[in-house]
């Protein structure tokens, strides 16, 4: 099977769906000729034209409002936030409109909207362009939240997100865009709400999201040399969350840690940790649950400080060693 990048996988999913379904179109800032801030939509305007690959003004509330309106008329819009940080400007549209319309109209109206949003740090883009705000949106009933951690998942999950009749926030990590994976050429779906065990292990269950999956797999490789067997689970979607896969794993390993790039305080990992503590896995816990998250600072621009603000492979290794009392 051929290897393509995460960025290519996202583009391929969109393109293949658009070829099949005229209702699907994309809109966002600089997504046309420029091909998007991260090149995800590069070449798409040539194939689909400016009607279906629509450049918009720098007005996220307006983009979201237009997308929601289009969705209500029967279209299936994919809107791109140039940086996920700008979701704050579109918050009213997403939280008070997109998330609630289906409920407030008794199911008679649907908002089949996908919001693609490049998130995370590591590019030196500083505090306003490097955040991980997924917990904000995961908190709102009516919104689905997806965080693919590799090219294969990105393509399959995006297909499911577009097919979904409700608003889905699709977080893409900037540092993952250039990572490669085996990705089938044909279109396929990965169901929302199905976690994936990225690595099997017996000593500790480590739930990681987005880019932390890659870092956790690297950490697990190092820990394996010490004889510590780490099971790495990628929930892939925060809402809906496949808690069962996680709980079953904790019951096998007896130890649990969760790692996420967002600021640790109030992060989505806290939610997963609580669900585990509340679950039948409680009686199997043989160590306190550990959360690793970003430091409680805005992401700095200085590369060294930026690196230090979020969990790195060595942080994960150390945390797991502590859990195993082998540090």
């Amino acid at each position, binding site marked *: 099977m051929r290897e393509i990048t995460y960025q290519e996988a996202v583009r391929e999913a969109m393109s293949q769906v658009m070829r099949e379904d005229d209702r699907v179109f994309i809109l966002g800032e600089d997504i046309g000729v420029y091909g998007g801030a991260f090149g995800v939509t590069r070449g798409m305007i040539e194939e689909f034209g400016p009607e279906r690959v629509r450049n918009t003004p720098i007005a996220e509330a307006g983009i979201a409002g237009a997308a929601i309106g289009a969705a209500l008329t029967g279209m299936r819009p994919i809107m791109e936030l140039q940086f996920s940080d700008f979701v704050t400007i579109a918050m009213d549209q997403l939280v008070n409109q997109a998330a609630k319309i289906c409920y407030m109209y008794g199911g008679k109206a649907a908002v089949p909207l996908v919001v693609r949003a490049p998130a995370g740090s590591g590019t030196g883009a500083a505090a306003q362009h490097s955040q991980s705000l997924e917990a904000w949106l995961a908190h709102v009933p009516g919104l689905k939240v997806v965080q693919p951690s590799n090219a294969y998942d990105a393509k399959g999950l995006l297909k499911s997100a577009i097919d979904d009749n409700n608003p889905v926030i699709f977080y893409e990590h900037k540092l993952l865009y250039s990572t490669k994976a085996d990705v089938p050429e044909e279109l396929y779906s990965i169901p929302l709400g199905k976690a994936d065990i990225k690595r099997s292990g017996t000593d500790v269950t480590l739930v990681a999201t987005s880019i932390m999956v890659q870092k956790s797999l690297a950490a697990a490789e190092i820990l394996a040399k010490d004889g510590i067997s780490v099971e790495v689970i990628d929930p892939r979607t925060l809402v809906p969350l496949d808690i069962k896969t996680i709980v079953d794993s904790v019951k096998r390993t007896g130890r649990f840690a969760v790692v996420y790039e967002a600021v640790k305080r109030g992060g989505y990992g806290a939610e997963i940790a609580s669900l585990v503590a509340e679950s039948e896995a409680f009686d199997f816990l*043989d160590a306190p649950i550990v959360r690793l998250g970003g430091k409680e600072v805005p992401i700095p621009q200085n590369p060294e400080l930026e690196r230090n603000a979020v969990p790195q492979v060595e942080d994960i290794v150390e945390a797991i060693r502590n859990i195993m009392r082998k540090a």
Partner: protein
Amino acid sequence: MKEVTMPKLAMTQETGTILQWYKNEGESVEAGEPLLEVMTNKINIDVESYVDGILHKRLFEAGDEVPVLDVIAYIGGADESLPDPSMNVSRETTLNEPADAVTNQTSLDNKDEPQSRVRATPAARAEARKLGISLANIQGTGPRSRIQREDVVAYAETRVSESTTTPSERRTEPQENQKRVEIQVVRNVERETTSSQIVPYRGMRKIIGQRMAESAFQAPHVTLVREIDVSETIALRSRLLPIVERQTGTKLSLNTMVLFATAHALTKHPNVNATWGSADEIVQHDEVHLGTAVAAPQGLLVPVIHSAQSFSLAGISERVSRLVQDARNGKLSPDALQGGTFTVSNLGMFGIEAFNPIINSPQVAILGVGASIEKPVVQDGNVVVRPMLTLNLSFDHRVLDGAEAAMFLQTLADILVHPDELLVSLHA
């Protein structure tokens, strides 16, 4: 050496009282053979030995109340020796309390189980529950000595290899006893710092309480009160006092006169001189076995003058005097406490005029005697001063009616008001 522990037979049971041992120290015991009888708050039950061996040591004797799961004895092979430290430990902890009948107490009892203070992971706790192991015995290897699952598993494996004791026996490992002692000591220290006092409710006090409550709740009590002029009985007593003293060396008391009169009154009222034979049988007795309530140091005792109707006044005086003395010295034989058919309780010496005595079941009536007090009374139209005595007859209304009881009281009053009648009845 195996420990025998006070069994816990009910969820709420905190102590058990040893009623009797079936085995003496040094005797051999087989597994399944009754070892001792224990009284819980509900039932009496035989405790069987779990093991074969020799009963090396009994840590408690009949009558002792022991907290559940405390070690009460040791059984082992002929060549085994007692585990001294733990033996002393349990003896001290459990005997301390009964020894001080009154101890200071904190306002709040510390209900914390030792186990809740053990640091252990949920997995370790779950494993320990599954295996029936107390975490208190396990050394944790986790951070800050937290017990982890593998510690429990390791402990269980060593336990299996070294012994075949049951989970309930494991709970009373010496180590845990040690723990219990520490807690006990702390509590006692706390107790000394406060002023409120607690008196353990057990032993004889508890038995008296149970019997009183039983009688009071089961028998519908009616108390008849009658005040009588005892001038003549007092005069007779004065005349007889030196004679009785000469014959028996005892001082004839007014109470003895009352007992004597009661014994003879009862012979004429077998319906009052009666006891419950069973739920549907009342036994009316020909003989009067007269109980007399005595305030002994350890509590109320009712020694019985058997066949009281056959004694002379001097004989009654002699007999009562001896019974009271024995009761106060704790020397009464079980025989002397059994078989009463009627009871007299005299509180006159404390200045009590009248009271409602509770029937000493299975008897059907009891006489309460008050003090003889000089009072103004009207006699032939004149106010005169007379020594008046109150008789209080409580009877079980299931057995007797008011009139029947009143007639007995009438007979008794007649004798005490006109003691000459006694001479007549004696020859009747």
